[in-house]
């Protein structure tokens, strides 16, 4: 029935939506930032535990659509063990991949995150995928204020 959506709703996305990874609070988190998408009401709180400039642990709480839940769930997995600079670079690549600004984006560079590349064909849904990353960006910059996609 939904053949046309195969690029957007891949099985990995359904899986992360059903069983989000790192869906918990980090009690002694070093960074805690809230992300909000006022267009759809999606809210998430991102927690980071740092070891020097390395992200030792990452987790989240909140509710959103399958795209945003899968995006933040995948993100918390992939950024663990990365340095701040590496995570920032990943954010940039992810942003380019989902907003479609770079045609020949290296999907290998983003690993598992490539399953979210499909959103670029759905402008109304891009922010669902990028909310997590904007929140991470704020956390890495040590901002504590809630961020909003609008």
């Amino acid at each position, binding site marked *: *029935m*939904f053949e*046309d*959506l195969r690029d*957007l*709703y891949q099985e990995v996305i*359904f899986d992360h*939506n*059903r069983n989000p990874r790192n869906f918990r609070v980090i009690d002694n988190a070093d960074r805690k930032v809230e992300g909000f998408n006022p*267009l*759809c*009401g*999606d*809210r998430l709180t991102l927690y980071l535990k740092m070891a020097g400039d390395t992200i030792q642990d990452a987790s989240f709480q909140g*509710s*959103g*659509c*399958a*795209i945003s*839940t899968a995006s933040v769930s995948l993100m918390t997995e992939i950024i663990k063990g990365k340095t701040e600079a590496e995570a920032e670079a990943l954010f940039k690549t992810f942003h380019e991949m989902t907003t479609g600004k770079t045609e020949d984006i290296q999907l290998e560079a983003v690993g598992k995150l490539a399953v979210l590349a499909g959103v670029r064909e*759905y402008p*109304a*849904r891009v922010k*669902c995928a990028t909310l997590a990353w904007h929140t991470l960006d704020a956390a890495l910059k040590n901002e504590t204020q809630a961020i909003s996609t609008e």
Partner: protein
Amino acid sequence: MTNFPVADIRADFPILAEKIRNKPLVYLDNAASCQKPNAVIDSISHLYRHDYANIHRGVHTLSVRSTDKFEAARGKVRAFINAASHKEIIFVRGATEAVNLIAQTFGRANIKAGDEIVITAMEHHSNIVPWQMLCEQTGAVLRVAPMNVQGELIYEAFEALLNDKTRLVAVVHMSNALGTINPVQNIIAAAHAKGIPVMLDGAQAIPHLAVDVQALDCDFYVFSGHKLYGPSGIGVLYGKQALLEAMPPYQGGGDMIKTVSFEKSTYAGLPHKFEAGTPNIADVVGLGAAIDYLNGIGMAAIADYEAELLAYATEQAQQINGLRIIGEAAEKGAILSFVLDRIHPHDIGTMLDSLGIAIRAGHHCAMPVMDFYQIPATARASFAMYNTKEEIDVLMAGIKGLIEAFG
């Protein structure tokens, strides 16, 4: 249902023949905005092709023609809501601008620190924020009448809020997020018994119900043309003449003055006092055409047909496991807001779109309603006179399909 001419009506709306993602369009986002019949589209292009000039300011033929059409449309609006006089029909950009106009003219003139304005828990943001702005400017207080879990106003609680500090009651006639039709007759009677004027936000009610402002005895009634099969960018503020006359103007400029000198200007009479500048001439004419079109069908027949559509959709929806209807008022217009277990409304919206079905997913500019139900958003199918039972079947099949896809 059998004798409602839905096939003929559909044939009058060219966009309904569009294919969306290679599927026939099933347009169920009418509460956000309705589609337009040929009569409306053609009236606008006819005006621009044959009759257009600025209004109220020329002696030349086209200006006269344009003015006549513009004022004729005002007459159509007057008759449509049964206002006592054309002077009570003010053209604005939409319901939102109308509420802001009332807040900034009637409100600024009559509402002082400590005074109270009463709204309900199911208002659209456009009937919340303008009052909050007024409260910030004046020190007045906004009071919110609560609703129950069916999405019905708790009438006794509303009545209990009315007191000798209440200066205005502003309530939605029909809720866009829930479909609830409020007991406006009782609300108005209760407020008037205490000498309090009442504004009704008719943005949703106007395409679904026959509205008679004199029978209602409301003091203000506001609505938007685009939800009434008319153009976007045009709306109506109805106000009782005595109230409008006592109110200061909203914006200053051309068309709203009698005389201007650098010492002092005097204002035009109603309705022009509130219509500064060149108005949205073509869309006023388009709104008039929409009203003619609706009169040709009859609001009572439309209301009956839509009630059948809603009953059918509700019955079908109730049979879907994991679907919860948000808004189950006994008095309800043709809106089906719902949530699905573990599936976010945005995913519902995207998945249905891939089947050609347009619904709204979001907070519907009613975040307090979402907070009340402790949900971030709902999916909303809203019906119009051109929708069919077959389209509801397509919607329900889509919902069942996506529940399965999500697993």
